[in-house]
């Protein structure tokens, strides 16, 4: 293997690093090879020089693997990235499902006690996940968890909002207004985030990931503009259990577990799959799924994230073009 081949294979092995980091690493190794080629004391003749250099450099695969191990985030952080979203999800799921079983012994008012049990776990899980994102050096990760914390704090303004969004319920008007008009500042915040990512990242995966929430939020704004502040929404109001699972638990599970797929793996296919899971969690958000049939425009609006991921994935596969950033970018 000659020097250009070695460097080409090394470059390929360093995918997942930022272009800047990869360039610097390649420059250092290329410098080593160049010095060996120009050092008269390195070997007596070109044949011996070539053999000694090959032995000294070792395999480009070994070198790239060892370098990836140096720069990979701590496995403890990876562990937390799986465990705490799971705790977050299970707390939400159990507090609803367990209630059914304790109801015979506890009055219905016991639901007032429920937030006391699950809220500390929610808050602790989200704080830990934000810290994990910061420790991994991943802005996109901690911004995601921060946005999720913001979303939950909005929804927790009135917990019953989870169950009834109809305008004919006077108790819901204030909290509904807060949530509906929160679209605009959220949209501005997301736009700033998107610009920052566009400026600092050349990684298609990261750019698409940053686009997903802004597309959904823009969709929410369109809905407010077209159908009014409350929109054509029909809340969940004690329907069949299967509807609750499909419209709430599955999207919640997907939305907290997609970062594990996206951030823990360096395999590009799995990272695209992570984005697809993210888009599905956004597209299947309660309560809008139940009005798709009455408002066909919403079908397209709420599936734009899914459409974007699929299109970007197909375009990248067709171009065979991979621009890589460090795994936790």
């Amino acid at each position: 293997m000659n020097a250009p081949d070695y460097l080409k294979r090394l470059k390929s092995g360093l995918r997942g690093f930022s272009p800047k980091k990869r360039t610097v690493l390649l420059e250092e190794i290329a410098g080593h090879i160049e010095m060996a080629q120009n050092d008269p004391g390195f070997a007596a003749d070109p044949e011996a020089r070539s053999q000694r250099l090959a032995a000294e450099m070792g395999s480009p695969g070994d070198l790239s693997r060892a370098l990836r191990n140096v720069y990979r985030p701590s496995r403890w952080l990876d562990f937390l990235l799986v465990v705490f979203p799971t705790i977050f999800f299970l707390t939400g799921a159990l507090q609803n499902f367990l209630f059914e079983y304790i109801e015979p012994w506890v009055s219905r008012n016991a639901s007032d006690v429920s937030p006391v049990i699950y809220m500390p776990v929610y808050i602790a899980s989200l704080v830990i996940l934000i810290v994990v994102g910061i420790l991994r050096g991943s802005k996109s990760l901690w911004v995601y968890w921060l946005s999720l914390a913001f979303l939950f704090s909005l929804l927790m303004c009135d917990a019953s909002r989870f169950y009834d969004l109809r305008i004919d319920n006077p108790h819901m008007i204030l909290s509904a207004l807060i949530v509906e008009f929160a679209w605009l500042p959220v949209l501005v915040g997301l736009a700033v985030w998107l610009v920052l990512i566009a400026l600092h990242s050349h990684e298609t995966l990261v750019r698409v990931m940053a686009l997903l929430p802004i597309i959904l939020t823009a969709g929410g704004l369109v809905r407010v503009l077209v159908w009014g502040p409350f929109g054509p929404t029909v809340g969940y109001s004690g329907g069949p259990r299967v509807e609750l699972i499909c419209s709430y638990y599955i999207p919640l599970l997907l939305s907290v577990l997609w970062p594990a797929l996206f951030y823990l793996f360096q395999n590009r296919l799995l990272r695209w799959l992570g984005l697809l899971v993210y888009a599905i969690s956004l597209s299947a958000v309660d309560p809008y799924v139940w009005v798709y049939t009455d408002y066909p425009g919403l079908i397209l609006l709420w599936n734009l994230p899914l459409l974007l991921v699929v299109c970007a994935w197909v375009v990248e596969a067709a171009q065979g073009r991979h621009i890589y950033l460090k795994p936790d970018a």
Partner: protein
Amino acid sequence: MAEIQQLPKSSAPSLILSVLAEGNKHGYAILRELDQRCGGYFSLTAALLYPALHQMEQDRLVTSRWEQSVGQPRRKVYAITPAGRKRLNSGQAGWRRFISRLSKSKGEPDDFISGDSR
């Protein structure tokens, strides 16, 4: 019996630190210095050297900076830090103790390793 020429991965940092203790060097110069010291007996590949250097930089045992000479491509030069010197000293003492105990357990004389620092 086969000779032990392949250096274990764990010994690379102490060897690199011992070279850098004598002055700042880039990766190629570190390998040449090690070659010279052991007469080419031990083999340390680039696949072992550079990851070790980068790990040591993250552990703040060494620092690096790019140096540009006239008419030459720039080179990344490494320097040992005070923490690196401390690690080197403690590592050398520990290594001497290990060799000494190994020699004794094999029934070799006490003075087999000079400078035994028990």
